[in-house]
């Protein structure tokens, strides 16, 4: 008898467990999707689209500096350069001073504005952009993006943007091309320069590159 009672209780427990797990799963997924749309009421896909459209609207060099600064600020709002840079510099962060760190991020932001934005714009000016479905990944989402030309024979460039929510905004913290993260590529480069000429050498190279990019952007107008 005691066994029968135990068996009923066991069944009840099993049923209640299943319900609980089901309920929990529903809650999590609903929460996640709700969360995906929660930042600025945008989905990750929309965030990427807005970012890329903003970059596409930029002019290099800017004919209207006020408008250009506005666009840059808008685009910057979608980037998490601190995360990107910190991860790329992970092997050296402990050894550098806070001033150096500030200098590094300042230069990195400026380089993104002077080098990465023109490159992104050039890339998109000739391509048709197809956005894929966001895939949950590492606390955020991966948004696949394909860049196609009108020529069906021409190769398709496929990239994947990783976004995480930060302070109520979707921010791009990684760009993956051919299965390799931009963080890995930047890390390879930073490590190589630091090994050759210390952290100060890296800052020097960044300054040189910035000066060169600014000169190039000016020349483009000429």
């Amino acid at each position: 008898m005691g066994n029968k009672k135990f068996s009923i209780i066991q069944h009840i427990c099993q049923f209640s467990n299943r319900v609980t797990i089901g309920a929990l799963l529903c809650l999590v997924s609903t929460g996640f999707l709700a969360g995906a749309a929660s930042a600025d009421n945008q989905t990750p896909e929309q965030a990427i689209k807005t970012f890329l459209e903003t970059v596409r609207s930029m002019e290099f060099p800017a004919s209207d500096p006020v408008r250009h600064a506005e666009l840059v600020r808008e685009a910057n709002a979608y980037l998490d350069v601190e995360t990107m840079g910190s991860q790329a510099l992970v092997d050296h962060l402990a050894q550098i001073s806070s001033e150096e760190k500030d200098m590094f991020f300042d230069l990195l932001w400026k380089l993104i504005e002077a080098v990465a934005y023109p490159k992104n714009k050039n890339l998109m000016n000739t391509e048709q952009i197809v956005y894929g479905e966001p895939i949950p990944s590492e606390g955020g989402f991966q948004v696949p993006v394909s860049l196609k030309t009108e020529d069906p024979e021409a190769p398709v460039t496929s990239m994947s943007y990783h976004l995480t929510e930060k302070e109520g905004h979707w921010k791009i913290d990684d760009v993956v091309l051919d299965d390799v993260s931009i963080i890995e590529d930047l890390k390879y480069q930073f490590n190589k320069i630091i090994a050759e000429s210390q952290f100060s050498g890296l800052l020097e190279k960044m300054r040189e590159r910035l000066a060169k990019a600014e000169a190039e952007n000016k020349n483009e107008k000429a």
Partner: protein
Amino acid sequence: MKKLNFSVPQAQFVYRYAGWILAAILLITFAALPYAKRLKLHANFMDLLPAKTPSIVNMKALNNQVGGSSYLIVVIESPVEETARLAAERFARQVQTFPSVGSVDNRTSFPAFEHRKLLFLTYESIEKLRRNVQDVIDYNRRKNNPFFIELMEEAAPSIDIESLTLEEKVSRIGGFSSKGKDSFMQAVVIKPRHPMSDFDRSEVLFKEMYDAFDEIKKELASSDPLIMALTGPYKVRYDEYKTIVRDLRVTGTLCIVLIALIMIVGFRSFRSIFYIYVPLGIVMFWTSAFASIAIGYLNLISGLLFAILLGMGIDYAIHLRITLEHHLKESGSLKTAIEKTYAEVGRPILTSCLAASTAFFSMAISSFEGFRHFGIIAGVGILLSFIVVIYGVPSLMVVVERYFPAKNQKSNPGLKVEIPRGVTGAILSLCILFSIYSFTQIFRIKFDYNFANLQARDEGIKLAERVYNHFGVELTPAAFITLNRARAVELAEQINHYIQTHSETSFDFSASIMSHVPQKQPEKILLLSQIDDLIERRQALISTLDPKMQEQIKNLRSKLKPKTLGVNDLPKGLTQQYEGQGPDVSVVFVFPRECILDGQVAKRFVTELRSLPVARDVTLAGEPVIYADILMLLERDTPRALVLSFFMVILILFMHFKRPAHVFWVLLPVVTAFLWMIGMVSATGFKFNYMNMAILPSVLGAGIDNGIYIYHSYKNKQGQNIFDALRNTGKGVLLASLTAIAAFTSLLFARHAGIASIGKLGFFGFTSCFLTSIIFLPAIIQFFETRRKPLQASRDSLAIVSSSKSSSLYKT
């Protein structure tokens, strides 16, 4: 020795039977003509060694079994790649059918090699290739990522298969294709069956190849320019031989012209040139006939014979003609002139002839066929020169003067030169000073062992360098002939291990047939398939690369799926290079680290090969072995032959002059001349080499000739001083020396640096002989003569009287 008398009876005989003597000479000449015509030049190094020499026997065995050991490279060029490729393919197929071609390697169109090319790389190189491909992908990915910020000036990586290391160096040798600035080059590597030094067969093969190429050009009917060029050791050596032959022809003509000019100036009559050249021409025919009957052919050394004979024979003819002319003008009677001439120069010419022929016969002791044949033929040639000149020149004069008597037979009163007192001492002092300087230079003599420095740098050599740079291998290997493949593999491994453990070795690498079968094939195939996967996965990225890189990767992909290559997959032509037609032979080739044209390298290479502990049934063969044997024999026998010649000459001189003091005076100019020659050589930075050493016996002969004529004349003119004696022989010595100097000067115009160096050394040698005979010897004799027997007080100056107005030593 019974004293030979050339005077009255001989002269009467010649005068009386001149016509008959000429008829006999002509008859013998006509009889000799067919034999002389049959004489061929064997321009083959193998003919310089006795046929039973092990290196020759082994070389013949190697040729019979697997063909020659070196290579002929055919380069086909066109601005259009396809045209060059098609022509090379057809050419390779056609040449394969030639009986004189052992094997043809045009591996660029041979799938067994082309698709398995990467298997011949080391495993480490394939790993490097994988990293290379990865680098290209990474670099371009970074560039394509719009967020990447290039901070470094990173050079674009490339995929360079050619720079990777081959597992076996022997794999470098083979047909290849290469893109030049304006044209596409396709190289086909050919192994002829005959030895490289058999230039006659090479010449036939080259002609067949050019004919075949012309046919292919017609078949292709392409409007694109298409050219073919030959190179490689077979062609370079052949070209060198042809350059030498051409140089000898050109310089020979120049030499004849120069000598004729000297004689026109010296004799002031064409008649004299006729009297001298006709007998010399006859001597050439007689000697050629003798060489044809006794030896059958001329080799590369005895080929120089005619220059020597011309040089020596002309000396006899000049001395005879001058003396005849002098006495004819003096007496007005040819009969008397012949008598006096025979009495005056008959014996010196005979002694000179005996000395020279003995010197040449001494060379016959050498086991080096080059010297032996040369010694025998030249020795007989000199004796024949004596006979033809001593009987032919007066007979010719008798006959010609009988029908076409020369005008103006009056004797020339001669020229008198006053030399101030003290000049003899000054001359002697200068001579002694230069002799002391020359003596100090004996141990500073430089010897250039490198034959490469003697070659003419023509287009063939430059093309060869381009091709050799591609291979990075010296293409003149030696070969070990073993009895089977297993033994060959074992020996090749043993030698390669020896190379690894001996850093100073002269060997580069060794190869057996199995060296052409790659090692670790399964591992390599796996690694290559990984590269293929990598490329496959990154197709999207690769399609964004520049077309050149895409083409490179496409070409690479075509080689990334090789099948295992077994020994049975190797082309027949390649297998035949190692194993011929049968299973009872398998050859191991050992390649030298440096060019064996450097004699020192060749000797070290072969000595080291012979020191290897190989089994008794393994034989060593190849061109380097023969080449080194020749050099070793040359080095061994040249001093021996020179010393023996010298002693034989001394013996002859003793027989002639009887007294040691006289022999000393005859030898003094030649010994001093050798010393001065060394002084001149050292002062000008000149280097001896294997080629110019061959003229040293001629310098010895010429120096002794001068000494004999001058001293004989001085000895026979009792009561006269040496300068008076020179009055009779000076012109002869002067003309004979000038003709020899002119002959060697003409060689300075040769394109071949070796021939030109012979000219330079000859110039130094004969000038030294001339100066020591005409200046030093008289000066030193005069010096002792004055001390021994004071001359009359009235003799304040020395007088030199010469019948020649042309000599620069004499002034009117």
